[in-house]
């Protein structure tokens, strides 16, 4: 069994793969983190607010 057929078995065919992607990226419970991941582009990460605030607490 190839990796692709394994994924098909678990997630479904091409017809619904985009639905799975939508769900993973746009639905599901949100747990805030220290770094917010970005979808595409050169900037892969955006430093979240809490990380910035933690930085401000450190020595100058």
């Amino acid at each position, binding site marked *: 069994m190839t990796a692709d057929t394994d*994924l098909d078995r*678990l*997630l*479904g065919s091409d*017809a*619904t*793969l*985009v*639905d*799975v*992607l*939508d*769900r*993973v*990226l*746009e*639905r*599901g*419970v*949100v*747990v*805030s*983190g*220290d*770094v*917010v*991941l*970005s*979808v*595409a582009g050169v900037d*892969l*990460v955006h430093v*979240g607010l809490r*990380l910035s605030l933690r930085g401000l607490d450190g020595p100058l």
Partner: protein
Amino acid sequence: MILLYGLARDVPTVSRPGVEDAEVRVVRVAGWWAVLSEHGHAPGRDREAALAHAAVSTEVALETAFLPVRLRAAHQDRASLASELEREQQRLAAAFDACAHGLEWLLRLPASSAPSPRPDETASGGPGTTYLLQRAAQERSSAVARDHDLARIAAAARPLQRLAEASRDATTARGVERCLLVPRARLAEARAAAEIAQRELPTLTLGGPWAPWSFADTEPAP
């Protein structure tokens, strides 16, 4: 960095690799069994990452009650993750109780083309009034088409709907969809019912069973 896939109450087993082929671990955090992977950097949020995240989440959801977490953020370390889970304990527990015992099924039809509404010839007003009347007619027409499509889905998928504890309807660019939350314990029945729906209505796109993402759609309070 830590990437969280979801939360369980009973310890799950995970056989597949996670995002960027990282090992997926099951770790006790803040009273939960957290399904996570650890990375030397913040992983990207691209198609491959999303598929890996989805596959891990669905594998666990098929095995045990599981609250899927959206692929959106990473945590600095386990202490940071624990702190966040403790802070959000109430919201996460409520979401878990609402949907973690179920699996999500998708039923979708391509949107019917709504007939173009005729301008109201009795309207007495300027172009603005005519435009507003046309827009109102279009919206009514779209709502009728949507209700019609949902009724077709309901008729074809009656056996699957009977198994469902909750449903959510949505209109997307791909059509009109109904998501159903069906208890994991009824998976075999749901598979058989889904096959019936597909036979009844061949244009129906059927998805699932997946982790219950559409029913776990909650964000932290602002």
